[in-house]
């Protein structure tokens, strides 16, 4: 993926989040409205999405990345915080007011089987944006739909077919076509390739790359798969339990991870080469992610962090530049990793290997 050009950066970030928080109440019973508990899906997230870049968003299941995506798309109400699209505040607009903004930001969904209405023809599905925003009608609409179908690599003659008649990869292309129909500025891709066979993933990823160049798109690419995100992103943000714990340019993140969680995720990626695998022993994280209903105090990662100390339980670390890093490399940690510092491995800590393996599974590494 290309770096954003300097000309584009000059016009300001496409999307700006400040203190975005989303809590889901847990209610008891159907009649009573008593709120028993709150799920802290996303907590105080602040980040900019720069024009023309691909921002990768990584995290385990339950990290809040999908919820964050839906906050960005304003598919849900924000509990608090601000969201700005091209400098305009869309944090609290009603659905009707949001409609014109929806032309500028679109979403690609994860499930190629669930994200397309099985009872509608593909041409109708892709034509939806044109219909909803009254852009084109009749034969003009059909022409526009077929144009975008060709653009994503689908045969325009399949206009009248139903989603069931396409393969998984093709369906995902349909989803991409639908998202790009009105030429948005920003595309949020929520795990667009996770449900596809590995051999198809490359196609779709490369398609997305080509389209980005051709249509001058900005992407937010959400995934749990570290190897994918490395391939596609300019910048990567790592999420844990509803917060961003580290964000950096791609190479910086992989070369100099500051947050222990990032390091652990990286080391959990299996390496195809058996010789190299022995050398990069797996870092140990203890246990499983805690429930977002009662997040740990202070630094949310502290119960699982091999480097945790009493300060970590007491005080929440701020997301800021550590050491002499580049200005856009931020980490939230009281004791960030120094250059070349390794985390204790499973053997050293005496933690059984299956635990480390569980982390690898969650990191969703490619086989």
């Amino acid at each position, binding site marked *: 993926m290309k770096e954003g050009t300097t000309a584009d950066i000059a016009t300001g970030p496409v999307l700006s989040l400040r203190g975005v928080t989303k809590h889901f109440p847990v209610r008891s019973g159907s009649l009573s409205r008593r709120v028993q508990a709150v799920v802290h899906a996303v907590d105080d997230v602040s980040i900019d999405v720069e024009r023309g870049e691909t921002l990768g968003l990584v995290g385990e299941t339950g990290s809040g990345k999908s919820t964050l995506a839906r906050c960005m798309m304003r598919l849900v109400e924000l509990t608090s915080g601000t969201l700005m699209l091209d400098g305009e505040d869309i944090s609290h607009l009603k659905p009707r007011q949001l409609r014109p903004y*929806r032309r500028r930001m679109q*979403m690609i969904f994860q499930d190629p089987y669930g994200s397309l209405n099985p009872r509608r023809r593909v041409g109708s599905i892709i034509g939806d944006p044109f219909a909803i925003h009254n852009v084109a009608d009749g034969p003009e609409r059909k022409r526009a739909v077929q144009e975008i179908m060709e653009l994503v690599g689908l045969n325009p003659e399949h206009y009248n077919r139903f989603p069931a008649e396409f393969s998984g990869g093709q369906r995902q292309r349909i989803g991409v076509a639908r998202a790009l129909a009105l030429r948005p500025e920003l595309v949020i891709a929520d795990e667009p390739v996770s449900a596809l066979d590995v051999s198809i993933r490359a196609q779709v990823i490369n398609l997305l790359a080509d389209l980005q160049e051709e249509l001058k798109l900005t992407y937010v690419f959400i995934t749990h798969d570290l190897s994918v995100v490395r391939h596609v992103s300019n910048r990567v943000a790592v999420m844990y339990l509803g917060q961003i714990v580290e964000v950096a340019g791609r190479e910086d993140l992989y070369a100099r991870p500051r947050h222990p969680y990032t390091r652990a995720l990286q080391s959990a990626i299996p390496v195809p080469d058996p010789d190299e695998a022995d050398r990069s022993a797996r870092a140990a994280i203890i246990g499983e992610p805690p429930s977002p209903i009662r997040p740990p105090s202070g630094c949310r990662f502290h119960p699982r962090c091999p480097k945790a100390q009493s300060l970590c339980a007491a005080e929440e670390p701020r997301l800021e530049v550590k050491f002499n890093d580049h200005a856009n490399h931020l980490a939230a940690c009281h004791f960030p990793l120094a250059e070349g510092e390794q985390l204790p491995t499973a053997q050293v800590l005496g933690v059984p290997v299956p635990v480390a393996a569980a982390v690898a599974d969650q990191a969703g590494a490619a086989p």
Partner: protein
Amino acid sequence: MSVYDEMAVESLPEAQGPGADYVAGAIQGRSPWHLAFERLRHDRVAVVSAVVIVLIACLAIFAPLVATITGHGPDTQFHMTGLTPEGIPVGPGKHFLLGADELGRDILVRICYGARISLLVGVVAAGLAVAGGAVLGMLAGYMGRLVDTTLARLIDVVLAMPYLVFAIALWTALGGQGGIMLDVAVIAFFSFGAVARVVRGQVLSIREKEYIEAARSLGAGTLRIMFVDILPNVLAQVIVYFTLLVPAAIVFEATLAFLGIGTTPPTPDWGSMLSEALNYYEVAWWYVVFPGLALLATTLAFNLLGDSVRDAFDPRYSRIFTREK
């Protein structure tokens, strides 16, 4: 170096795996409706039922023709040829193909005219109930919370009411006026609740699907989502319900007429004919058998067709074999 860098895109064809050609070429735009219709077409029971229904409809439509052919109007009493000297109705024979009733009227002709009422009330009432129920069910299911709770409670109350008793109450309260319009209204009112409940359930599960979320992310409004995205997915169920509701409505109308509610004499109606027949079955078996057969044939045909339609839409329902999950 990641795995993805190493894969060359150009070498991979559009569709993967064996059968790719099958996917790409063979199936040309076959909609779920098309497939269901094909299944229905090949179902012998369905075809026979459909034919029977068409026949009965023809009898209804061409009732005046039957009257002309036999020379007997539906309300005309033939005391000379229809009744024996003792005043007992005449059986099936050369004058009256299916016999005569207690006033010397031609039962065949009356059955044909009676078919009009039964089919009309059945189809219209079922149609109204289904249309109303579907819309309400969609509203309740999609809009959730307050709308849903009030509608659900309303439906509960309506469903809890003993409908025959209430039909009776309504009829008497209106002083015995209303005719078949009342029938249609009452039947529709007491049937829409069941449809609404079923549709609501379906909508609740569809609402969580990703393509609905996709529609919202595109900026689609509530109405558009309901009618463009949700409706096609509940339509199949609604149609099945309709085909099963029609015979229920027909039976309901006949039952009301049997009790003296709805149609007024001398209008020919299967239910009221059978009500009179109760007094004469010992001397005029044809008075019970022929209208009864007509009624039974109609309801049976619709029920069989409804079953077949349901099977056509969802072959899993044949349930002959162990169901695979």
